């Protein structure tokens, strides 16, 4: 792979034009490498007569200075490495017959075909007083390959974060396109385990930096961003509610317009659509007051990105909600770091265990005096692989909720899924039987109508627990 041909086929520059530089040969070898150079040891001294290929002999070239005039013998000595530093750079192949090759030549010229000389040791290389070596002068083609390879590698390592960041954006065609490109990259990154590098880094950083994650979260588009400067560890030691506090059987009071039912909705981007619809539905009853806090791209696998347990503690302290609606899971099918610092990928057995532990812990944390917890997991997704992972996440939610009577899980597959519980764009509106589009074109997010459907379902659920008519208490 050489761009030599491109250059040799170019139209001649008219004489006198600025680009008509007679000192540069036409067929520059701007890639300047051999394949083995990429994987082999960095230095292989070459002998001038070992050069090959058109580039090395090409063109009149810039007349080299230096040792060409010295009439050298062809033997390379360690002295040359230092002495030639003052020479003019020799760019053309013709001059290479003289023994004034230096280490930097390899970097800017043709790479290093195997020679029979041993390279100088590291100290010698470091001691070379050579501006070109310090500046890392290389052919543009090689720089391009290094740049592309670097970006691809960095992309694979950081792809989980990029996906999360893109997902956090508002729905748009550009976002969908970016995700359609990034998701396969994410699969490759995960398959090659490269994302673990970033996970490990994040784990390292996250350990000593909980405050920051929390603060960063507080500052992002939430209703209580104003307190983003507040500091402190964030009540991780909060005790789960005591036995006597569980009191599902005690039921909830009957809310009135003067003393409305306090509902708090939290969660990822889905919580925005659902929260908005729920707030509207609650308002229409006249006895429900709803607070919504959503954090795009958040979930329970990445507390370093957003710490939901801490945010929940804060909400419980601030609002003392009687009903908590939590919407999580769509961003959770990604690597998780266990308490001992070891990461686990989604397909590894330890993942479900750790994720289940976190879900259960948050459910316990939400338990309160008669408080109702409505837990909304992820819906089925259009992309089958993603959908399967979401089903797995939803199953863990259901599993953890089973022994916890204060948690009511809403299975979105039943609300916005198809007849078989799979993905569908539109469902029949239960009230009118008319089809309504419940999913956005990205195959992930809910439409407003979808949010309304879920909210109606939640309100129905709440009505079985609380009297929302301002009249007698519900049946509990």
């Amino acid at each position, binding site marked *: 792979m050489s761009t030599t041909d491109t250059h040799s086929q170019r139209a001649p520059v008219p004489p006198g*034009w600025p680009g008509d530089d007679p000192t540069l040969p036409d067929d520059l070898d701007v890639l300047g490498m051999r394949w083995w*150079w990429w994987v082999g040891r960095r230095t292989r001294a070459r002998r001038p007569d070992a050069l090959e290929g058109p580039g090395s002999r090409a063109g009149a070239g810039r007349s080299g200075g230096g040792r060409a005039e010295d009439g050298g013998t062809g033997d390379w000595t360690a002295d040359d490495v230092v002495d030639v530093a003052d020479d003019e750079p020799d760019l053309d192949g013709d001059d290479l017959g003289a023994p004034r090759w230096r280490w930097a030549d390899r970097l800017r010229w043709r790479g290093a075909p195997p020679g029979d000389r041993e390279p100088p040791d590291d100290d010698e290389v470091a001691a070379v007083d050579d501006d070109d070596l310090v500046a*890392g*002068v*290389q052919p543009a083609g090689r720089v391009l390959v290094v740049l592309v390879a670097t970006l691809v*590698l960095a992309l694979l390592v950081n792809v989980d974060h990029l996906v999360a960041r893109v997902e956090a954006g508002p729905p748009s065609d550009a976002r969908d396109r970016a995700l359609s490109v990034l998701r396969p990259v994410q699969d490759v990154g995960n398959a090659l385990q490269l994302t673990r590098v970033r996970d490990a880094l994040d784990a390292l950083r996250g350990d000593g930096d909980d405050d920051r994650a929390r603060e960063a979260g507080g500052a992002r588009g939430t209703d209580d961003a104003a307190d983003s400067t507040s500091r402190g560890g964030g009540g991780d030691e909060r005790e789960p509610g005591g036995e006597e506090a569980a009191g599902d059987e005690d039921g909830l009071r009957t809310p009135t317009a003067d003393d409305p039912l306090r509902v708090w909705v939290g969660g990822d981007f889905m919580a925005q659509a659902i929260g908005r619809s729920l707030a509207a539905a609650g308002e229409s009853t006249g006895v429900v007051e709803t607070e919504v806090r959503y954090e795009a791209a958040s979930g329970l696998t990445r507390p370093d990105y957003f710490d939901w347990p801490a945010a929940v503690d804060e909400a419980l302290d601030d609002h003392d909600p009687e009903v908590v609606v939590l919407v999580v899971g769509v961003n959770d099918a990604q690597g998780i770091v266990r308490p001992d610092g070891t990461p686990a990928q989604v397909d590894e057995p330890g993942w479900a265990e750790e994720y289940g532990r976190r879900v259960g812990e948050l459910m316990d944390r939400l338990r309160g005096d008669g408080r109702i917890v409505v837990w909304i997991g992820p819906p089925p997704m259009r992309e089958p692989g993603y959908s399967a992972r979401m089903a797995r996440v939803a199953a863990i939610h259901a599993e953890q909720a089973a022994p916890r009577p204060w948690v009511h899980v809403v299975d979105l597959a039943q609300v916005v899924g198809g007849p078989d519980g799979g993905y569908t764009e539109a469902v029949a509106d239960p009230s009118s039987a008319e089809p309504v589009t419940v999913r956005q074109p990205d195959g992930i997010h809910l439409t407003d109508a979808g949010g309304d459907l879920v909210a109606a379902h939640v309100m129905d659920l709440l009505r079985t627990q609380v009297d929302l008519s301002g009249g007698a208490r519900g049946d509990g």
Partner: protein
Amino acid sequence: MQFPTVAFAIFFLAAFVANWLLRPHPLVWRATMIAVSLYFCAWVDVRFALVVLGVAALNWVAAAAAHRAMPAGDPTPASRRIVRAAVAADVAVLAGLAYRGFLVESVTGALARLGWAGSEPVVEVVVPVGISIYVLHAIGYVVDVGRDEVEPVAFADLLLYLCFFPHLVAGPVVRVDELVPQFHERPDPRRVPATDAFVLVGSGLVKAVVIAPWLAEQLVDPAFAAPAEAGGLELLVAAYGVAVLVYAAFSGATDIAIGCALLLGIEYPRAFDAPFAALSVRDFWDRWNLTVSHWLRDYVYVPLGGSRRGRHLRPRNVMVTMVVGGLWYGAGWNFALWGVVHGVYVIVEQAAAARAERREPTALLPTALTAPLHWFVTFHLVCLAFVVYRAGSVGDAAEVLARVATLAPGGAGLVTPLVLAVIGATVASHFVPTEVTYGARARFSALAPAAQVAVLAAGLTVIAALGPEGPLPFGRLPF
């Protein structure tokens, strides 16, 4: 489009390939680089690209007319008028786009104080990123032609000089005779100083993406949001923090720009030269954002008369230059006031230096102590000025300074060992000669490309992991 994004990386790779493949064809190369740069502008806002075209056309016509009006080479009254009109038009564009919000707010505020409580005007002008950079370039070009310091250049050259994308976001500001000749030379595609460029981009990313946002979040923003809660010592450290933050944001952005341009075979002048190692405020301005400072010197200070029109006019000229310089950093009274403070420093320093010249040198202190003392005083004066730069109002700045001066008790737990280490390391890095890194650079250069890729990707990952989530406070407005 911001530098540290995937979108920019893809854009840059395309520009890199086009640049080196088309370099042998000067016309095609210029047309392509203009298209690429205008695309970069339009990424922010299509109108931005149109404004660039308009500014280029206006100044190209004006410069040509001014050049025709001075057949003997020396400026004539006619050429002066043309240059003044062009500069006025450029300043109007700048005021209309970048500073309109500031001007309208100031005027409305003044009217409101006079009891003229009209309805608040809604300012909905997109502030084009980097507008000040290319307007500064345009002014420099037309003035230089008017002074007969440069010949008028081709329209394509001027347009490319104005909008060449590496310098569009945050500079550096280059003179037309520094950049346009490089458009005409064909750099050797086999000689790309890659390690230099990688070091510049890498250090720029560390400064602009890691250090600046981190310091803002951990120390500066909370301290200045509620100065009453912070202790005096804490606010002192916060003042150091502002200085380091502003330095990191601006020098980081220009380092990235210089590094990117280097990969394209274009050399920019150095913008920051270890400003926190300065031993006097004038020395500081010889090291701080040099390209902007030089522009201010050449196109504000010198036309005002500089130091040549008598001793009593020099302070005025210094003060005007400093205030204009302050407003370049941001459209707000705090930035203007920051310029005033520096103006006072420089004037006092010049007066003291002139007095010292007339006297016998008396050694009050052993010479071994003089330099550290000068450094200490200069550094604190600079930091004090940055308090004004960062504070939301004069009252806030006064409160911060009062609490520092009285070493007010209290503390919000903002100063951690890590914060001190980051500030200390950034300042200390100014005293490390660049040569120290040559060994490491040579070692990196000598690595096989696969190993270079691994090192670079690891560096990018660490920067990404340490950087903030979400978009960066970047470019000309680090806050």
